[in-house]
């Protein structure tokens, strides 16, 4: 998971020059949030090394982009990601997996980490996400409401209820008074999406962002009950982070206007 920094000596020199520029850039982009990103301490520090980010699967595309931006802004750093179901990531962190940052898809899963005291400071919501139905391109079964998912012979997959996406889906189904027996409860939202992409499943309840990320491989169907089950995505630095300064900077990037832009383009809602 953690990798040793490359080109340490050369990096230091460039980082020293870049740090000042970075601080200026960051301070220009900083947005309101519980954490101040343009702390004076950062200007004197070199940002190097690896930042390990555990993030919910739905954040894959947007966080990867942000990671690349971060590496560009702080040459010599390297961002590694671990995407997965928020619940299994939380369990990993609680069992001692080395991570710097945790971005969960629900407050509940973040609570698993904070309850154990593994978060540094209190987490802050940085985006929200809305559910959407993903179907095969062309929507051959004519799905346009949540009830349509109960049609006989239709293979629908949901996320397992321990995963934020699954919990939200459950809330939405209850809100709509729909009782749905899926073909499978997947362990994270990307697995559910993949089943639709492979056309193994006819439909899946995933996030809007996943539908957008899949492009023309799936077709999205919005439904009103999704408004009842919008997930808040909290992000937090971790207590035993191997690279706390870089962790701080990454969180700052995520909350900055630049970060918000990337996330917004992916389909996330403002926090």
């Amino acid at each position: 998971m953690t990798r040793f920094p490359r080109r340490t000596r050369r990096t230091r020199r460039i980082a020293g020059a870049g740090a000042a520029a970075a601080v200026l850039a960051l301070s220009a982009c900083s947005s309101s949030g519980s954490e101040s990103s343009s702390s004076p301490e950062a200007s004197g520090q070199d940002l190097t090394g690896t930042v390990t980010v555990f993030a919910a699967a739905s954040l894959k595309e947007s966080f990867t982009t942000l990671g690349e931006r971060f590496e560009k802004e702080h040459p010599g750093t390297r961002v590694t990601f671990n995407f997965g179901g928020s619940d299994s990531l939380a369990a990993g962190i609680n069992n001692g997996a080395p991570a710097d940052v945790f971005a969960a898809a629900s407050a509940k899963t973040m609570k698993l980490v904070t309850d154990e005291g593994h978060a540094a400071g209190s987490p802050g919501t940085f985006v929200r996400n809305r559910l959407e139905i993903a179907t095969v391109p062309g929507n051959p079964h004519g799905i346009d409401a949540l009830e349509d998912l109960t049609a006989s012979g239709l293979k629908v997959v949901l996320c397992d209820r321990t995963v934020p996406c699954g919990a939200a889906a459950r809330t939405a189904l209850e809100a709509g008074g729909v009782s749905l027996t899926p073909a499978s409860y997947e362990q994270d939202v990307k697995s559910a999406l993949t089943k639709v992409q492979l056309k193994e499943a006819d439909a899946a309840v995933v996030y809007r962002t996943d539908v957008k990320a899949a492009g023309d491989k799936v077709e999205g169907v919005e439904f009103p009950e999704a408004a009842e089950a919008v997930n808040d995505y909290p992000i937090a630095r971790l207590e035993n982070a191997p690279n706390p300064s870089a962790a701080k900077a990454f969180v700052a990037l995520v909350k900055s206007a630049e970060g918000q832009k990337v996330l917004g383009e992916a389909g996330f809602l403002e926090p």
Partner: protein
Amino acid sequence: MTGPQAPAAGRETYRKPRAPGRGVPLALLVPALLGLAFLLVPLLALLLRAPWRDLPGQLTSPAVWEALRLSLFCATTATALSMVVGVPLAWLLARTEFPGRGLVRALVTLPLVLPPVVGGVALLLALGRNGVVGQWLDAWFGVTLPFTTTGVVLAETFVAMPFLVISVEGTLRAADPRYEEAATTLGASRFTAFRRVTLPLIAPGIAAGAVLAWARALGEFGATITFAGNFPGRTQTMPLAVYLALQNDPAAAIALSLVLLAVSIAVLAGLRDRWMRTA
């Protein structure tokens, strides 16, 4: 010397092993004990950290027994299926000559080295609704395999069958083919010779392979979750249940693990005699 053979005849050939430390070189003993400790300590940890007080409550949950019942059913069915097709395949590899035999043998053992999830993906691409073969199954028979118990059985068979084939092929190679010759001179067709002479002779090898296959099938996770998905009672086998429970209810996960451990030990202990005889 009269009378029919007692079923316990096999015990006569089983000799007690020498006590360790007597005549065992230290250079072998130390690594051996280390290896043993490495295998045993996690099991002991499981027993030590088990929430014994909460256990009865956990164990009465219907989800646990559902998952167990499904696991046992699927593993046994997968083993049976492996035997039905695996034994003839092993015979083909061991007793006949055909071009490309070496390649076929390598392919048969491929699932052993393939990561199970890769196996699951491959199964999807082959037998999924849109799969190479699967699409015809769907079009002609309306049969879809993913998300079904049958799918679980197929995924488990895919990963477990190579164990059986290798074990049986090895036994067949070691078995004397002249017994089959003797049978043909007595009037047995090749198939009758196989059925009445070869099969009984390789039965220990088949049993050993079946035990391995069963154990492998019982513990299969990656191919199952990828190909068959996860639905309680239909496709949620014990390993899946444990994995998902671990996320939010570790006590339940440990309870499930203990149940699985107990069942596995019971089965392996029950088959111990046969196992020992082949060794």
